[in-house]
């Protein structure tokens, strides 16, 4: 009896584990479905970006369930939760600052280095195609 009371105090139990497992599986399946739906879409289209944003939100939800329930953080003392979560808020600044910096670097390069921009827009022939044409030429030569 003592053990069950202890488990209740910490929250959880097998029921909670099963519930969280189902939630994580459903979130993963939704992510994969969105991934499959995204495949045929044009690179950089608005809808594709919106789906990517949705996937990131689902990812955060999965992280919440893993940390909160599997790692038990949700059932810890509030002070402990704060010492873990508050420093991690630095990531908000890191991600905003670095990603926008990367984006601005790309724009600067494209504006002030036209040669490099031209290089990055030249299409490369696929190697396999090159091989095929070569073998075809050889065949023709043999004939």
């Amino acid at each position, binding site marked *: 009896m003592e053990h069950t009371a202890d488990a209740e105090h910490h929250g959880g139990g097998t029921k909670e584990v099963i519930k969280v497992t189902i939630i994580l599986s459903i979130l993963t399946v939704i992510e994969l479905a969105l991934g499959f739906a995204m495949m045929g879409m044009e690179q950089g289209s608005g809808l594709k970006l919106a789906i990517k944003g949705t996937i990131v939100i689902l990812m955060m939800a999965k992280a919440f369930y893993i940390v909160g329930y*599997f*790692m038990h953080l949700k059932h810890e003392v509030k002070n402990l939760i704060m010492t873990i979560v508050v420093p991690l808020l630095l990531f908000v600044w*890191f991600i905003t600052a670095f990603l926008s910096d990367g984006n601005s670097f*790309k724009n600067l390069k494209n504006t002030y280095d036209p040669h490099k921009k031209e290089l990055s827009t030249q*299409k490369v022939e696929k190697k396999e195609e090159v091989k095929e044409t070569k073998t075809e030429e050889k065949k023709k030569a043999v004939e």
Partner: protein
Amino acid sequence: MSTTTTAVPEKLWSGGKSPFKVEYGKLMMWYFLMSDAFTFGAFLIAYGTTRFATNGWPNPNEVFKSYPFAGENANAPLVFVSIMTFILIISSVTMVLAVQAGQQMNKNKVVINLILTILGGAAFLSCQAWEWNHLFHEGAWWGRNPFLNADGTASTTNFTNFFFTITGFHGFHVFSGVIINIIMLIMTLTDKFEKRGHYLMIEKAGLYWHFVDLVWVFVFTCFYLI
């Protein structure tokens, strides 16, 4: 007097006990995992920054489209990696069950769930080894990138460099997690925890194992989905 005796348990910082109500080792495991989160975060943010600073990027659906025992023309993007994801989630679940069994001092249940967790970790590592081997034979490695950007332009080696570094770092974490779990299994089988009277060590190993699963959630999203 009665008011003071009832007030004392609520004051966490009055001294004489842990204000966080956790054991020292577990608290330190949390802080270690936080620092590890910053390491992985730095890697992934560097990857994101590079991707934002580059004009084109390979399409993951064209790169990661094969699976074991498939022919060269296999075209099943996301299938193999979703299997890997589920393997890791399930092994995380068995780890939670092992931790709970430890809290109930149920040795047999701890052993069974630890073995399942180790098997899950080994399965994940095998999948990753297969994938690395496959990509290596396609010509991808650090400093070598055979894949073109999604729009058909030439790609830089940043793609493969980041992929192998970050999945490699994660794979190494999985590997250490499996070793830690094997040590936990041996300690359980030799009744070390029974003699101590608690299975707190399993809880710490569990925290580490869940963190590995957590990192995979981010790596999986950043490399395979987005």
